[in-house]
């Protein structure tokens, strides 16, 4: 199977590899896939609560070259976008950008899921911290 130049480029020079502090209330973590399926992606974003802008994005991926490239591309794309803009990224955009063959479409789906999961995690954290804050106020 031949890989597209863009997949090879992301595989050889993955962007934004790393880990953000999970406990940071402004960091959302999305962990999707399963080792048994041969793909696990972890996408993390640091989101400014005021502006809703994604200031930082990091990933780590266990998976084939296309899975690595899809998640690397996702971090590149979400950086600087607002949460709403990031949620609008669809797997088909990734397929097109990386020229993924049909058998690798699930890699792009996983990357889209990872973006959504990271944002959902961040939203959940925000709600809990708001509830916690309110509770504290009431307690006072």
């Amino acid at each position, binding site marked *: 199977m031949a890989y597209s130049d863009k997949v090879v480029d992301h595989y050889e020079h993955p962007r934004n590899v790393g880990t953000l502090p999970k406990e940071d209330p402004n960091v959302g973590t999305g962990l999707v896939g399963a080792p048994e*399926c041969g793909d696990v992606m972890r996408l993390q974003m640091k989101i400014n609560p005021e502006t809703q802008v994604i200031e930082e994005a990091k990933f780590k991926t266990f998976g084939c*070259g296309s899975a690595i490239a899809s998640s690397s591309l996702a971090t590149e794309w979400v950086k600087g976008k607002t949460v709403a803009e990031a949620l609008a990224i669809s797997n088909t955009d990734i397929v097109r950008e990386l020229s993924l063959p049909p058998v690798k479409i699930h890699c792009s789906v996983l990357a889209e899921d990872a973006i959504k999961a990271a944002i959902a995690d961040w939203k959940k954290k925000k709600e809990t911290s708001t509830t916690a804050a309110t509770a504290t106020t009431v307690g006072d």
Partner: protein
Amino acid sequence: MAIKLPIYMDYHATTPVDPRVVETMLPYFHEKFGNAASRNHSFGWTAEEAVENARAQIARLINATPKEIIFTSGATESNNLALKGAAEMYREKGNHIITQVTEHKAVLDTCKRLEKYGYEVTYLPVAKDGRIDLDDLRRAITAKTILITIMYANNEIGVVQPIQEIGKIAKEKGILFHTDGVQAAGKIPVDVQKDNLDMISLTAHKIYGPKGCGALYVRRRNPRVQLSAQIDGGGHERGMRSGTLNVPGIVGFGKAAELCQNEMAEESTRLRGLRERLKDTIFAKLDEVYINGSMTHRLPHNINISFAFVEGESLLMGINDVAVSSGSACTSATLEPSYVLKALGVGEDLAHTSIRFGLGRFNTQEEVDYVTSRVIEVVQRLRELSPLYEMAKEGIDLSKMNWGASAGH
């Protein structure tokens, strides 16, 4: 010495034709092109003589007699002929066949076909080391059992089955014993007498001969095995396999067998040394690596390793100047990881990370060292990228994680 890239280390898939074999074959394309079945002129006689010479060379490799060698188009056909031919011939005697789960598809799919025709097939499980349990085999035998077919050595993990013991059991019970011998013959000693084999499938292209040329050994005495032909025609090969013989291919097959026989002792020692060197270096430099299958009962030129937390296809992509293969789902058309590794009880997570190294005649120590260092380098790089490696290092038990439903597959 500069290394020539890419490096081929996938000798279980196929082998290059040895130049000495090519040399032997050449006259049989143009100059000595006769049909071995032409009885009326010297062109035919010359071809027939060459075929009979090759038949003897192949017979010697497995301690058979030349008349017991039936030429085919390859081991897939040999397996089909052995199983279907025996099933059909001995239908009156019974309808039960015993095989095991890590067989090549040429055996498994033939068995499935026979099941459709009303035969019953028992698929023996294998232990963690990849070998069948002889007690399982004994228990599986019934009054209806006509054939046991168990491969000599596995193509993915190189595990050698207890062939002599299986042969003994089959002989005691009066059941025919066939083995798919493509990975073993020419590489380790195979002896149809000592091993009590009634049939063994062989192919030229795994032993440095040409593709498209195989053979089936069919025992003629004690017992005399009979097969129903699966291809009808001119009644070639004692009526068991019609079709004009591939004379150049057969000549090459014969020469390849002779070379293997003469060089086996030296070659297997050399390859075992290289294999150990590769394995030891990898194990010294990397943690969380696992060997799939028995190390004791294994072909000397095979090693199959799981590199935990690194998906196999991504590893292959990183070592793209080296030809090896992976049990990862992503490298197969079915998106299923290796059924052989699954049968061993290797978790699907580890099956996805497996690489098969198949060493062979033309590999050098320089090549092994190059491949080893490339593998180590790429595994380290990909582990830096792997969330699973990071989690495992943090002490998270990945098997206890709830991975939930994902959009993957």
